[in-house]
């Protein structure tokens, strides 16, 4: 089955209680929004987390991306709050 790896960082990782999972994705690829809708429908904790957390960022294959961008099988997807380095 076509899948992607999903990573969670910082407060998202902590609140979900996991840092990594695998999810099914359409073989021809689909938008982050589309994939995320499917995940949220299956997982009420994830749904609640995205509902209460503003400004979640997404990266595809270790580069910042937008929720409209396409995720393809084998991609590494990551969700995290705004960055606070330096």
């Amino acid at each position, binding site marked *: 089955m076509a899948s992607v790896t999903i990573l969670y*960082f*910082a407060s998202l990782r902590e609140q979900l209680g996991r840092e990594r999972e695998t999810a099914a994705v359409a073989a021809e690829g689909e938008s982050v929004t589309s994939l995320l809708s499917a995940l949220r429908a299956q997982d009420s904790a994830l749904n609640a987390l995205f509902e209460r957390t503003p*400004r979640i960022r997404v*990266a595809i294959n*270790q*580069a*910042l991306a937008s929720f409209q961008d396409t995720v393809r099988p084998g991609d590494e997807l990551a969700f995290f*709050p705004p960055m*606070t380095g*330096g």
Partner: protein
Amino acid sequence: MIRVLVQTDAFDLGGEMARLSHISDSVGGISVFMGQVRGQGDGLESLTLEHYPGMTEKVLIGLAEEATARFSLLGCTVIHRVGTMRVGEPIVFVGTASGHRAEALQATAFLIDRLKTGAPFWKCERFTDGRTTWVEAREADDDAAALWD
């Protein structure tokens, strides 16, 4: 000459500056910024820095390359620590070397402004009473980064 490190260990300030200084005879100015854990009088004990291994290095190398091209740098060093650091400990070192002072000074400000909001680091504060909280991103930092667009 770009040097990017993400490490748990502290860095050698004098050694890093000497490295920039000796890159070539054409170096006339070296600018450095170092950020450290600031005590805020509210019982902060330590910061724990989490990052996104792989992406962090890519972003920092990209920023160093952008700074080098934009400010004609001869050398550019970015070192960011991860893990737990107590009040007073260094977190980040940005150093640039150029022929003239203006380029190095500007490049250092550019790098620290951009990496604050563009590199995948997250700070979690731990207080002496055991409480921990994730640091909220500051709008002022987004504004500072955007000034370089």
